[in-house]
């Protein structure tokens, strides 16, 4: 298994993307995310055939999506990809065409964090009901019990 730095250098030369390393994660610009993911999936060196987890996070200055990729064929991993997008109209390319496993997870990130996945076959709310207006996992979401002192829990 290559180190994060080696993967970064390789990806930069092969896909022409500028990638920054954040801890164990590789921050990829959203325009190039699909290409990078496809390269990781199809190249025999990596064979990242298994998308384990998709997480949407609200960082106040923008929304982030984190992808954990593993290789079942080579029993290696993880390669952690991240991408950043705007808070107002956050659009990220969908990875569902590459991995079916992203379908429900992207719907969940759309539902709870409000990230729009471009190219998703069926982007609807999944856990909250249709017509619900907010994105509950955003940091500025108002909760009903917000006036209570959180330290008592």
């Amino acid at each position: 298994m290559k180190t994060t730095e080696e993967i970064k250098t390789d990806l930069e030369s092969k896909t022409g993307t500028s990638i920054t390393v954040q801890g164990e994660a590789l921050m990829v610009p959203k325009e190039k995310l699909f290409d990078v993911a496809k390269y990781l999936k199809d190249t025999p060196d990596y064979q990242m055939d298994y998308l384990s987890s998709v997480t949407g996070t609200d960082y106040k200055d923008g929304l982030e999506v984190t992808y954990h990729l593993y290789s079942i064929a080579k029993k290696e991993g993880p390669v952690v990809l991240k991408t950043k997008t705007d808070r107002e109209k956050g659009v990220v390319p969908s990875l569902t065409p590459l991995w079916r496993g992203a379908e429900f997870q992207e719907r969940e990130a759309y539902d709870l964090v409000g990230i729009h996945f471009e190219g998703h076959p069926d982007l609807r709310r999944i856990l909250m009901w249709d017509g619900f207006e907010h994105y509950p996992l955003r940091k500025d979401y108002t909760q009903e019990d917000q006036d209570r002192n959180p330290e008592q829990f």
Partner: protein
Amino acid sequence: MMEHTLISKPDFDTQTLEVSLGPQHPSTHGVFRMNVVLDGETIVKLKPVMGYLHRNHEKLAENMSYLGSMPYTDRLDYICSMTNNFAYALAVEKLAGIEVPERAQYIRIIMAELTRLVNHTLLIGFLLNDLGAFFTPVLYAFREREKILDLFEEVAGSRMMCNYFRFGGVKADLTPDFLPRVKELIQNYPRFLDEFEALLSENEILMARTQKVGVLPKELAVSASITGPMLRASGVPYDIRKVDHYSLYDRFKFRVPIGEHGDVYDRYYIRVLEMRESIKILDQAVKEIPSGDVISKVGAGFAKAPRNFKPKAGEAYGRIEAPKGELGFFVVSDGTNKPYRYHVRAPSFINLTILEDMCLGHKVPDAIIILGSIDIVLGEVDR
């Protein structure tokens, strides 16, 4: 998606019929709905609808101390509270760099494997319920499950919502008669499995109903992030206990059974085989368990004052082979005493992705057993 042509003939007009299976129906294992389009009795479209049990578990966890969510993880997959604790503890230990003493690791493995026995036994019982063998298999399964829940009660004080793991170890040491009781259990359990198998494995009705039903091809299973017994029944040898070597699993000798056809029967049978492997692990663990601390000093300190627990800023993803598949926790810390982001990668939820693919072309009663063979718990699907 498969295109389906209606079976109507020129002189005989037919229409498709839309039916809601659930949410209030015992075969959905909770509150879960399948919107099904039927052509005659054949399923031509199926959309799962979920969220009836949604309580935004992740938001709750982001508003309390790290240890505060430990009892909440019990309520995700409420059949397997011990493994939920395990995955969460693993993620946070990775985040904060906490070591776990050897005895605690052994205790954790014993609990995880006992949980696997509980889960798989119950699954087979409920699957038979879905097949129409009402309550007899389920009661046999419950009889055995009781014995394991008694053991959980003995160490954790609670039968289902165990809340037994702490960061850096476990809550309390084993009681003196715990290990002898586990020994007795692992002596008797294979006998129960033999009994179950004698009744079921070569049962003509079971075979007729489950073989070649709900086939999940290897490639689709991998691409759709299917994990656990579902994936292995499709013939992919991938077990996180073997791949990640988390905790002390590399010390144990056990095999990873895989299926051949990926149908409902394989998914039933793989669980029987996995239980036999779990018994092997338990047998080794009970023999080799060392004495010593059950929680590290650092962990014990934080267990007493959970709000002082402030991991340095960073993030960690901890995953284990839970009975239902890969259970992962992604925790992001910003240096305060509450997680900035807390995400659950729930196997039941993601394994539902391909429900439609497996059901297309089958009849309604087949859809019920296909759903049963996925092994979902709605507490985990909806979170």
